[in-house]
């Protein structure tokens, strides 16, 4: 047998972290079913559900919502919880550096994003007029990942800088303003002007516009990439700072 490589170790950490999380029913329901339920209750009964463009945009919005709730809860609250457990420190005595655990955490979050998207996309396809031509699938995946970057980073910042209780409070208080304000529940076309101008500055709105463009081909607002880049830089720096500070406190 050979010495485990970092890639194998990252896979090992991701696999067991996934098992750990998936066995907590509320974590799975909260992050994966909520977007699908929103689709069932708020989109499917509406008349625009039979309009391909509107239904596709609505599904895209909820897909961004799925990414956001995984970011806030799996990365944010989940990492804060894990850090509080002595098991986390114990894994650092094993012959693996910090990176397999960190990469494992990131992969675990991505797995939950996929878990959240599968039922959403399936039901949107079955019950609404939403369409996604195969040619747009890869583009949409890239848009979701790119749009998700600042959201992932916000989650990781929360997870590595706050206690479990504080992380939960912050995640919950960010969830709705970011979702409504970013046009993830109601299409931004229905926003009054003042709300729309605030919305344009939110990372969720930028992510939403990017994914709607990727799925439907509507024009991308000129500010989207700028706002997205700015938030990614800001939240990314915060995440790196929070991770390093946590390392310094617990492992130095």
């Amino acid at each position, binding site marked *: 047998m050979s010495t485990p490589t970092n890639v194998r*170790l990252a896979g090992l950490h991701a696999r067991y972290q996934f*098992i*750990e999380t998936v066995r907590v029913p509320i974590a799975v329901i909260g992050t994966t079913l909520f977007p699908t339920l929103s689709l069932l209750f708020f989109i499917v009964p509406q008349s625009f559900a039979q309009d391909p463009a509107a239904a596709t945009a609505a599904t895209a919005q909820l897909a961004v919502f799925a990414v956001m709730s995984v970011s806030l809860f799996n990365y944010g609250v989940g990492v804060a919880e894990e850090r509080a457990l*002595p*098991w986390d420190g*114990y894994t*650092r005595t*094993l012959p693996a550096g910090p990176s397999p655990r960190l990469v494992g955490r990131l992969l675990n979050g991505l797995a939950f994003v996929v878990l959240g998207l599968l039922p959403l996309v399936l039901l949107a396809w079955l019950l609404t007029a939403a369409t996604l031509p195969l040619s747009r699938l890869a583009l949409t995946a890239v848009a979701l990942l790119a749009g998700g970057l600042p959201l992932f980073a916000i989650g990781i910042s929360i997870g590595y800088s706050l206690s479990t209780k504080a992380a939960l409070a912050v995640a919950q208080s960010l969830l709705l303003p970011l979702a409504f304000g970013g046009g993830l529940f109601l299409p931004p076309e229905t926003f009054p002007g003042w709300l729309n101008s605030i919305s344009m500055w939110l990372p969720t709105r930028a992510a939403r516009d990017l994914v709607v463009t990727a799925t439907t081909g509507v024009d991308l607002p000129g500010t989207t990439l700028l706002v997205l880049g700015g938030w990614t830089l800001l939240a990314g720096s915060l995440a790196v700072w929070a991770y390093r500070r946590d390392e310094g406190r617990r492992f130095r």
Partner: protein
Amino acid sequence: MEILARTAAATRRYGPVTALDGVSLDVPAGQLLGLLGPNGAGKTTLLQLLAGLRRPTSGTVELFGGDPRDAARRRRLGCTPQETGLPPTLRVHEVVEFVAGHFTDPVPTPELLEQFGLTGLERRQSGGLSGGQKRRLTVAVAFVGRPDLVLLDEPTTGLDVEARHALWDAVRRYHQGGGTVVLTSHYLEEVEALAERVVVIDQGQVRADGTLADVRSLVPARRVRLRAPDLPELAGVERSNRDGDRHELWTADSDALVRQLVTAEIPFCDLEVATASLEEAFLALTAPGTQTIAPIDGEMAR
């Protein structure tokens, strides 16, 4: 002899608090070393330094000839998580397999579980185990990578007598097979039963380091307890304590001491004579303000 782990003048401060103060310690291959100290003495910090979880503020720490913070140095090391630290939703076999995945040639899971009396619990989630089962699982994972050195932090706290003895047997078997152990314990009898070498730490410093007999001999061999009003000057008393009419006297020759008490017609009662144990030595070494026994260095260990 190969030195598996070593600290040299290792000091660790947390802000204004000095948890470890210039500790120098060698752990040679094959030794079973018991680390004793009151709560907050610095034992956990010392183990954290050896396991690479923390780095010393000054001084050096070596594990298998290198920096324990380098993951490759920890391939021959086994550690225990705290009992409360097991991921509650993982099953017993998953906990073992996760840890095993980090090592080149791990012990097969069924074999390990059998060694630690956990057979039949493979599919139980660790959150549903009893305290004793959790404790055994945490100790078991320290051995899964066939380590050359294990650090056991309070391995039997919360175990009943039978489980404790079973665990001692497992540690002894490992040691007889050539394994090296550094063990901390609240139970002095555990250290007496297992350790060849005892290191007493208090307030971040090594107070004593030697064989069991060495450390025991730091206090006079006999302890005499009695109740009496004032005692006169008695020959052969090396150390004494008084609490009201209760007296504790340490001496090399308890028979001579008792004879003196009788001849002097001291109205004593509740006489007790006991062999000073490791516990006596430990208490004498770590009692606050006790200056009777000067701290000794590591020389007697070698």
